[in-house]
């Protein structure tokens, strides 16, 4: 009997667009305590099919205060789904002409001593990229021909923007949230939320949230012209009420110890004046370090507006390129310019114009 409930995989292929109603909204909220509510969730699933008439009712009921809170409701749901559910998903990222695919697993398991262990893994499906496994706050990276190592971290951020794990309220000053219509993605009903840059200095970010699970079915960075510059697609989703075998296996894996060595950082990088910073971006850190790979010294600044980040590098001048050097990889811009006696490089998820403006504004003090 119990075996029946061990693995309930939600593949609700809604035959009509109106397949989601009260049943689906409640179904997703009970993920938090799967053990006790297995029976109920099973019932809910059965019920969800013959009840197509109650469209969009719960949404208005939960958020009577207008659009912004509506969007916040969905984003909150997204956040909970990302951190509190068991699922396995296939992910495809489309960046410029490059396509990458990942398997994404997330789940919970209770230790012998009663403590809950959060387990997450993102591994590339093709090629030998970096596989990241996280157990609670230990984040380990596995790469072929390299020693695995661990750092502290509460989420694997490969294709999911950092803000999904933080407070969306941080974005209110620089972005506006727009609740748009529902649509179908891979046969599932999805709610589109548009996170739009107020000043147009950054990309707009659109996310389609699965109505049932709250997980992101599709994410896209959109430029001012409305073109998709980069996007992430969920190709399949297994939504689990209990950890599956894969999660159990991951639970058994011993991760390497978190390296305790503090990275030596030189904090004296106040040599430069960055006169232009796009709206909403704040300095996260600055230091002087050797750039990995070619060991060139760089004065480094990292800015973020919560959703996206960009780096500013100030380095010795090299004569081998024609300023400005402007490259693009999907939504990531790379702008390198000659300044007065030094080179400035801006790399980040920004429109090229903004990146160029930032690079041009760097002056020596």
């Amino acid at each position, binding site marked *: 009997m119990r075996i029946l409930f061990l693995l309930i995989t939600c593949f609700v292929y809604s035959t009509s667009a109106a397949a989601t109603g009260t049943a689906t909204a409640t179904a997703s909220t009970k993920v938090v305590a799967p053990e006790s509510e297995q029976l109920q969730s099973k019932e809910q699933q059965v019920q969800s099919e013959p009840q197509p008439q109650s469209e969009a009712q719960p949404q208005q009921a939960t958020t009577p205060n207008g659009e912004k809170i509506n969007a916040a409701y969905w984003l909150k749901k997204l956040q909970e789904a990302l951190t509190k559910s068991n699922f396995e998903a296939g992910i495809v990222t489309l960046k410029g002409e490059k396509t990458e695919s990942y398997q994404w697993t997330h789940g919970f398991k209770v230790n012998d001593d009663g403590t809950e262990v959060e387990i997450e893994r993102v591994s590339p499906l093709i090629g030998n990229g970096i596989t990241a496994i996280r157990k609670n706050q230990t984040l380990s990276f596995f790469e072929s021909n390299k020693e695995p190592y661990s750092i502290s*971290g*509460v989420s694997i951020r490969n294709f999911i923007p950092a803000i999904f794990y*933080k407070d969306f309220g941080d974005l209110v000053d620089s972005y506006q949230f727009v609740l748009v219509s529902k649509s179908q993605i891979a046969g599932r009903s999805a709610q589109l939320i548009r996170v739009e840059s107020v000043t147009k200095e950054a990309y707009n970010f659109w996310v389609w949230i699965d109505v049932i699970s709250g997980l992101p079915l599709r994410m896209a960075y959109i430029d001012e012209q409305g073109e998709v510059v980069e996007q992430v697609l969920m190709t399949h989703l297994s939504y689990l009420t209990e950890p599956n075998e894969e999660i159990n296996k991951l639970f058994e894996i011993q991760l390497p110890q978190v390296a305790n060595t503090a990275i030596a950082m030189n904090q004296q990088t106040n040599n430069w004046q960055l006169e232009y910073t796009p709206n909403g971006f704040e300095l996260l850190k600055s230091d002087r370090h050797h750039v990995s790979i070619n060991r060139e010294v*760089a004065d480094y600044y990292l800015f973020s507006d919560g959703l996206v*980040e960009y780096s500013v590098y100030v380095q010795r001048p090299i004569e081998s390129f024609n300023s400005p050097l402007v490259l693009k990889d999907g939504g990531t811009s790379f702008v390198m310019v000659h300044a007065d006696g030094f080179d400035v490089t801006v790399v980040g998820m920004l429109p090229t114009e903004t990146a160029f403006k930032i690079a041009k504004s760097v002056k020596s003090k």
Partner: protein
Amino acid sequence: MTNQHQEPLSAMLDDELTNNELTQALDSIKDNQQSVQTFGRYALIGDVLRKEQELVSDDSFANSIQAAIADIELPMVDQLETENVASIAKHPKWYQRASQKVVQLSEHKLLKGSAQFAIAASVALVAVVGVSNMNPGQDKITSPVLNPVPLVQGLSPVSLSSDSFKEKPTANQVTQSRINALMADHNQQLRATDDKEELEKEDKKIEQ
């Protein structure tokens, strides 16, 4: 042609002739195309043995030498000036030396030393080979003709994306390595920094 006939040639290249003998030798070969070819081959062989010139062991190479030498006349020197001839012909020193020596050869004046003459002949040969190997259709290639290594094909510089590289074909190795390094560093920084920031936030929450 007898071996006897070739002896003076060989001796001349080996610097074993007196002035009189040298004059005789030059006279004897002046109207004989075959002798001229033989002389050229001897000079080339000598050069290769002395490692003064790289040997390209290819039948077509030898054929092209013979073909070129058969045609060698003053017009060849004029051709050196035409646009179709690649960099070697444009090199002032090569041109000067080659034309000078070819003229000397054609007028078969007495040279100061036969050794010099041998060098001169080989220089002319190299120039001729270089010119005759150039097809008219290849005149866009500006690589050094004397370099026997073929142009490397199928290798192209790596870029962030093929699109961007098409726009910036001038990016060289140094630039490229910096671009790659900065892209990698940017991603690395993102990974580390986000987590740090979040942990700090969590710490603050705990403190509160």
